[in-house]
Structure formats: structure tokens, C-alpha cells
């Protein structure tokens, strides 16, 4: 039996070493100072900075010359399914992760492969979403959240495993897809598995040793503050509040802002109460993990509207004063302005819908708590339609904030709904346990709608809407990147295009057709004085599944090609 355990629990791994860092090139260690003030030429973390802006200050490529942008190299990952990670770049070295937890190190200027890490997943393993959303860099290591809920530290120069730490038992439904977050010598991860009835948490590990430093559950245990919001015994144990997207970080107050998923199972009447901290933003102390504050977007959730997207740290004007704020377009279709208090607290300021939504009758101006239209709240044995549907006004793809324009750019979807009812199901650990089967989702769209996917923009100070881009024949599943060159880059459409828009006017200035469709975030960086824009094209996961439904509903293309390719562009010389 011991032999059995050792052969299965230790998931074998493989680092395929090529040249490693060529010619003895120096790798520049990543420090806290560099993460706090990242150099414009680098893209050191998933969203470019701790504030989560998805913004590059680089401006060599700009709205006047972007039409000259051309591919300079590509790299086939050799992997299928949904590629959702941005290229992470540190002084000329690029790290991309792929579905099934692979990491590829590349020369960011030439595309030469330096090394590749392939995680061997355990026998019988499966995950609802097999994607990965990027690596984290710290010191001279690369950190990967393995799909099988194992955190892996790799040597940035060679790809060799420095350590592995099991975060959770995948057989119980936990898995990991987000990019880790580095906070002062610690590597923070969250977990997916809400559809399987897990209890979410954020856990911090020592960057050197891989040992756990703190672990904070996103659902309180009995006796802890908030536990009285789980009124039915034991529902908290399987209540969801997964933590499947990376948080953002405020170094000045050492506060981590991390989003949580909806409740499990999906139907609130099976877990009466507000169900803290489902569909919330948590404010956690970076050093201890202690919960400083929270904001819950909707209580006793029924719509699969995770609040997994951590808010961006954006300072905006309000009543003539600058507010240290949080800005977040949520899956529930509302755009929120929140306050970052000096003690790490979160205050509600205002919310407004950014897509049509029929569930909230209103949002309390003081607390931010929505008043629910019960006609649009599904329940156990109670069929109800709600719009936007379960994929929300936006799903996980990143919005972008440009400090240059003062605008937020939101990849959105509209004119779609779901209608379902719940049933009570017996839970089998590691198996789907939402209370509704996929064929019974009754996803629908308005067939006469003039568009479905869109980019919406708003002034962060006034909330006034700006330009829009409407996609008549596609949903929008692409993260956006704004740049100092007054550009917004993004893919996200089923026509395989990668596009650049004028950040001020929304005019489409450039496009490039890629191998697959793009659901990964773009990034920008500079090597030897040349600005590059890079993105992975590789369709899959929910975008592809939704597309199969739309092929039946609207006749859209059912088989958008899959397979990952890293595309890197620069101005033609």
C-alpha cells in the first residue's frame, strides 16, 4: 500500500530542459520593490501591477502607428483547450502557462524555447476547467498553481522543480487555475471547485520553503464572525465561496483584495441565510491572512454570479476629492465604486448596471445590498429566468483601467439569459453538485438583438458611459489591455481576431487574424528598445461551450479551431 501511495500521490513531473537561459545570461531576480513599482518594459504579474489595471505605460506602439504592427514570432504550445494566461515577462524572459499546468520559458525577443515544465496529472484526475491563468515570479523562481491543487516552485533559469506543496486533495473537488499572487515573501493561492461543493480559502505559502504561513477560509466555521449567516447546520462545510481568481494587493496597507465565488449548491433555499462570504470581495491582511473587511455583492446567491474578480485599485474623484478606491465590474452586471479605507476596510460608494439586468430591483445607496426581484430568483423546484445569464455581464476576463484616459474598459456580454430550477442532490466528493444539470440550464439569447458581445467603457470619476464596441455575431471573452499609446488591445471574439482600438474614441485601428480565438489576456513589454504586444490564442473552456450553444441558437460557428499559439507583435521596421 505504501508503494501504491508513493506512486500515485507524488505526481511525477517533467522539466524538459533545452538551453536554459542562453549564453550564461543573467536572470534578474524579482523583488518586492519591483513588484510594487514594476518597470514599464516588463510584465511581472498577470495584470501588470498590484492594482490590477491591465495597463502598460509603454507608448512606442500608439494610436498613430499601430497599423504597422506585425507578427515577429509565434510559438505553438502543442496544447489544446482554453489558453487563459498572459505572457509574463522579466527582462527579456517570457513565461507562459498553458492548460493542464504546463509552463514554457521563451526568449521574449526571439521566441527561442528555454525550457518547458509539464506537470503530470494524477490518474483519474479531471477538472471542470483545465486552464491556467498565469505564473507568478519572485526571486529567481516561477510559481505555478497546478491544476491538481499542488503549488509548484520552479527555477526560473532551468524550469527544474524547487519544491511542491499539496494545497488540497483534488479528489474532493478542489483544483487550481489562477495565477498565484506574491505578497512580501509569500505565495498566495485560491481554489476552484465551487461546482463540487468545496469550502473556499486563500492560503499563503513561504516562497522559499513552500510551507504554509496562513490559511483563511472564505466561509466562517461555527462560532466565527459571520457563521450565523449559514442558518442550516453543516451547509457551511460545502458552501462554495471558491477563490478561483487572483487577488489584487495594496502594499501601503498590506491588504489583499480577493474575490469569492457563489454558494454551493447553487440554490439559496438549500442554504438559508446571507451565506458570508460567498460572492464577496475579501480584504485580507497580507501578513496574517486575517479578514479585515468584506463586501458582499449579492446575498443567498442563486445565479452562479461569482464575485471572483478582485476589484481594481483605482483612485477616483468624488465630490471634488480624490478617493482611494476600488472599481469593479462584477459578473452580476453592475459596476461598483468602493472605498479603500486606511485600515483595510471596504466602504460602499455606488453601483450602476453596465448591462441590462433583471434581478436587482435596486441597490441600497448606503450599504450596497441589492433588493431582489423574487420573480427572477430560481429555487429548488422553482423555475425562474434571469438576465444576464449565468456567465454574467462579464465572466473572468479582465477589464482594464487606463490612468491616461481615466476610463475603465469592460469586456461584456449582453442579451443572454438562463432559466432553471434546482433539485436536491446527494453530494459525491469531486463531482458536480450544483442542484441543476447542464442540459437543464436553458441558456437563451434574444435572437433579434443587434449585438451580444461588447466592450463598454466608463469614466471612472463620473460613471458616464464612453465608447462602445458591439459584436453582432460573437460573444466577448477576451481580457483587455490598455496602453500608454492610447490603445486598447483585446481578442475575445469567435472570429479569431486580435484587435487594437483607439482608447479615447473606440475606433478599431488594427486587427490580426490568429490561429484560434483569443480568451487570454494580452501583455506588453520591451526588449532592447522594441515594444512588443503578446497574447496567446487558444480557444476553449466556457467560451467554447457557450459557442456550441450559440451555434444551435443563432447558427454561429460550432467548431472554432483550438490549439494554443503565442503571438508576439512589434512595429514593422
Amino acid at each position: 500500500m505504501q508503494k501504491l501511495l508513493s506512486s500515485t500521490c507524488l505526481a511525477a513531473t517533467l522539466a524538459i530542459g533545452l538551453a536554459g537561459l542562453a549564453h550564461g545570461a543573467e536572470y534578474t531576480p524579482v523583488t518586492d520593490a519591483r513588484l510594487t513599482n514594476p518597470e514599464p518594459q516588463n510584465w511581472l504579474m498577470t495584470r501588470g501591477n498590484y492594482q490590477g489595471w491591465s495597463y502598460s505605460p509603454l507608448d512606442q506602439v500608439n494610436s498613430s502607428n499601430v497599423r504597422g504592427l506585425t507578427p515577429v514570432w509565434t510559438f505553438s504550445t502543442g496544447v489544446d483547450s482554453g489558453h487563459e494566461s498572459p505572457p509574463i515577462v522579466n527582462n527579456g524572459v517570457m513565461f507562459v502557462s498553458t492548460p493542464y499546468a504546463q509552463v514554457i520559458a521563451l526568449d521574449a525577443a526571439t521566441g527561442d524555447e528555454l525550457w518547458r515544465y509539464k506537470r503530470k496529472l494524477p490518474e483519474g484526475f479531471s477538472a471542470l476547467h483545465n486552464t491556467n491563468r498565469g505564473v507568478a515570479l519572485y526571486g529567481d523562481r516561477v510559481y505555478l498553481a497546478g491544476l491538481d491543487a499542488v503549488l509548484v516552485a520552479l527555477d526560473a533559469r532551468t524550469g527544474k522543480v524547487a519544491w511542491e506543496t499539496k494545497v488540497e486533495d483534488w479528489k474532493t473537488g478542489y483544483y487550481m487555475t489562477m495565477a498565484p499572487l506574491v505578497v512580501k515573501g509569500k505565495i498566495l493561492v485560491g481554489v476552484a471547485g465551487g461546482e463540487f461543493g468545496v469550502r473556499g480559502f486563500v492560503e499563503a505559502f513561504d516562497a522559499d520553503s513552500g510551507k504554509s504561513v496562513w490559511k483563511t477560509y472564505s466561509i466562517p466555521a461555527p462560532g466565527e464572525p459571520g457563521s450565523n449567516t449559514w442558518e442550516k447546520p453543516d451547509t457551511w462545510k460545502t458552501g462554495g465561496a471558491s477563490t478561483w481568481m487572483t487577488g489584487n494587493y495594496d502594499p501601503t496597507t498590506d491588504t489583499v483584495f480577493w474575490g469569492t465565488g457563489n454558494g454551493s449548491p447553487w440554490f439559496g433555499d438549500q442554504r438559508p441565510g446571507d451565506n458570508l462570504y460567498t460572492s464577496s470581495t475579501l480584504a485580507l491582511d497580507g501578513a496574517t491572512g486575517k479578514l479585515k473587511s468584506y463586501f458582499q455583492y449579492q446575498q443567498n446567491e442563486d445565479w452562479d454570479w461569482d464575485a471572483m474578480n478582485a476589484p481594481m485599485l483605482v483612485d477616483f474623484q468624488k465630490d471634488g476629492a480624490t478617493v482611494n478606491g476600488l472599481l469593479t465590474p462584477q459578473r452580476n452586471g453592475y459596476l461598483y465604486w468602493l472605498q479603500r479605507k486606511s485600515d483595510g476596510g471596504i466602504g460602499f460608494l455606488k453601483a450602476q448596471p453596465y448591462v441590462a439586468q433583471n434581478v436587482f430591483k435596486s441597490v441600497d445607496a448606503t450599504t450596497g445590498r441589492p433588493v431582489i426581484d423574487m420573480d427572477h430568483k430560481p429555487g429548488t423546484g422553482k423555475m425562474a429566468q434571469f438576465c444576464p445569464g449565468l456567465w454574467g455581464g462579464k465572466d473572468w476576463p479582465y477589464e482594464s483601467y487606463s490612468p491616461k484616459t481615466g476610463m475603465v474598459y469592460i469586456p461584456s456580454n449582453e442579451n443572454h439569459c438562463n432559466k432553471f430550477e434546482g433539485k436536491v442532490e446527494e453530494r459525491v466528493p469531486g463531482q458536480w453538485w450544483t442542484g441543476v444539470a447542464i442540459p437543464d440550464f436553458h441558456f437563451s439569447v434574444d435572437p433579434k438583438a443587434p449585438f451580444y458581445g461588447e466592450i463598454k467603457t466608463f469614466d471612472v470619476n463620473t460613471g458616464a458611459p464612453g465608447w462602445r464596441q458591439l459584436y453582432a455575431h460573437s460573444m466577448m471573452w477576451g481580457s483587455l489591455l490598455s496602453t500608454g499609446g492610447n490603445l486598447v488591445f483585446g481578442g475575445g471574439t469567435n472570429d479569431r481576431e486580435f484587435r487594437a482600438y483607439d482608447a479615447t474614441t473606440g475606433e478599431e485601428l488594427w486587427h490580426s487574424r490568429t490561429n484560434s480565438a483569443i480568451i487570454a489576456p494580452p501583455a506588453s513589454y520591451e526588449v532592447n528598445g522594441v515594444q512588443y504586444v503578446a497574447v496567446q490564442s487558444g480557444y476553449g473552456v466556457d467560451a467554447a461551450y457557450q459557442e456550441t450553444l450559440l451555434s444551435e441558437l443563432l447558427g454561429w460557428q460550432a467548431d472554432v479551431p483550438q490549439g494554443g499559439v503565442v503571438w508576439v507583435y512589434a512595429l514593422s521596421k
Partner: protein
Amino acid sequence: MMGAGVALAPVALAPWLARPARADDDPSALHPQPGDRLVFLTGPKKGQIIKPEDLPLGGPQFQAYPQSPDGVLRDGSRLNLLIVIRLDPASLSPTTLANAADGVVAYSAVCTHQGCPVNAWSEEKKMMVCSCHGSTYDPRNDAKLLFGPAPRPLPALPLKLVAGVPMVAAGFSARLGGETA
């Protein structure tokens, strides 16, 4: 905009779940063997050996694991997860009928797409459904795919009726598990 010499990505699919069960010396991880019986994983008869009369005619399916004649539950490998359903023999395709025991049919519950458990039932379509990405299989016709991304049918586990109890008659009809890159 695609430049010369830019290659499209090959979609590399490699079987990763097709290996034999974990350890030859662990009977709980062995794949189903002839003579094994089937045991409910869930429901009011959880842990009990499945008999045809325990199953509602026409579905839904139940999840099960095989159990050896000497009582070892073969749940040591997730690849041994089964779905069992009782259907009108007149509704079955010839191959499915040949694999059935008094209308009881068993398939691998591991989706051939990405290995998720096929644990949902569409009452509307009377079909077995994978909860991960909606692959929908016809239990009457060799678990052929009707919808979704799975590349091939679910492997069938041939059964025979012995003393009124469905027993495993032979190994799976195809290799187990999903595809991944």
C-alpha cells in the same frame, strides 16, 4: 496579417488515462473483472449490490463501483467509476442489447472528453450527460455522443445475469478516460 512561415498550432491529443489501474497487487484498483458485481455509490441503497429491480426502468442512471466476488470494492481507481441504467431491452441497439443483463446496461462513467464523471441525467432527452462540458451520451445505442465535445462513446462494460444479479461478463469495450494535451 499572418506572416509567412507562421505555423498553426497542432492540436496534440494524447491519451493520459489509458494506463492500467494503479497497482496490480491492489484489488481495489483493478479494473472490473468477470464475475464482479456492481454496488451503488449513492442513493438509498448506497453500498448494496445492484439488482435489476432496484433500478427505475428508463433511467435515470446510477453511479456504481464494481465489487469482487470476495467483497473488495474496486474504488481504488477513479477510472472504475460506472454508470448503470435499466432500459427496455426492445429499445436497445444490437450491441447494447448484447452487453445488457435483463435490460441493465453499464458504461464507464469517465467522460471521454476530459475525464469528468458523467453523473447527470437529462430527463428531457433521456440521455446521460457529463456535468463538465455537457457531452451527452445515448445509453440505448452504445453510449454514442449526441452533443458536446467528447470525441468518442463511453466504453461499455458487458454484463450477464447470474442468479438474478448483473455481473461483469468481460472487460471494458474500449480504452478508458479522457483526452488531454
